[in-house]
C-alpha cells in the first residue's frame, strides 16, 4: 500500500516522534509498502537540518533519516513556513532572506502545506507522528 507520514518532532523538541516515525518507516519498507511522502512539519523540520550534532552516545536521527530518504528515494518535504521560522533553509531561501548560510540537507525539499494535503489524498494510509 501507499503510505504518507507526517513528522512533528525532532530530537531535542521534547518528544520521541522522530524516532518512532523512523522505526515505523523502516518497518513499512521491510513489509514491502511504499512511502510516497514524508512531510516534516512544525518542530519536525529540525530533522532536515545539517547543523544538528547530537551527543556521541545518542542516535543521530537527522543522519538516519537522510540515509533512509536517499536509500529509498523518498519524497521528503519540509514545511517551508515552519522551517523558515526555525532557521532551516536551503541556499535559495538563504539568498532571498539574506541569511549568512543554509543548512537544509540534500534530498529534502522546502514546500507548503499543499504537499501535505496532496499526500493525504494520494496515499492509502496517512500516519501522523505528533511530538
Amino acid at each position: 500500500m501507499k503510505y504518507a507520514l507526517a513528522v512533528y518532532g525532532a530530537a531535542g523538541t521534547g518528544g520521541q516522534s522522530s524516532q518512532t516515525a523512523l522505526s515505523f518507516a523502516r518497518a513499512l519498507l521491510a513489509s514491502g509498502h511504499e512511502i510516497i511522502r514524508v512531510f516534516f512539519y512544525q518542530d519536525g523540520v529540525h530533522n532536515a537540518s545539517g547543523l544538528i550534532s547530537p551527543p556521541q552516545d545518542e542516535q543521530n536521527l537527522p543522519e538516519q533519516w537522510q540515509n533512509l530518504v536517499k536509500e529509498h528515494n523518498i519524497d521528503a518535504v519540509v514545511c517551508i513556513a515552519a522551517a523558515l521560522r526555525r532557521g532551516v533553509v536551503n541556499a535559495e531561501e538563504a539568498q532571498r532572506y539574506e541569511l549568512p548560510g543554509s543548512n537544509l540537507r540534500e534530498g529534502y525539499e522546502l514546500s507548503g502545506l499543499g504537499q501535505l494535503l496532496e499526500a493525504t489524498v494520494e496515499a492509502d494510509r496517512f500516519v501522523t507522528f505528533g511530538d
Partner: protein
Amino acid sequence: MATLHTVNKTGQPLELCLRALNAGDSVLLLEEGVYALYEAGDVLSELLRHVAVHVLDADVLARGMTNRDNLDIDMIDYQGFVELTETNDKVVSWF
C-alpha cells in the same frame, strides 16, 4: 469503517481518544502513552471491554515497565504496528 487510534501520552490525548472510539476500533499505546498501563482509575480495563488495545513493546521496555499480566493487552513490535495500519482503514493520532 475501523480506525486505529494511536495515543502517545496519557492525560488529555488519552481522554479525548476515549471519547472518539467506536466499536471495532483499535488503540495503540506508544511512547509516553504506555503509562496508561498503570493509569489510576483503571481506564484501561474499561477500555478493554470495548476495543482492542495494543502497546508498543519498545516503549514499554524503554520505561522499565512490564505488561500487566492480569489484563490481556497485546504487546506488539513495529511490524505489528504496520499490520494494524493495514487492517484498519484510517489512523488517527492523539498527541
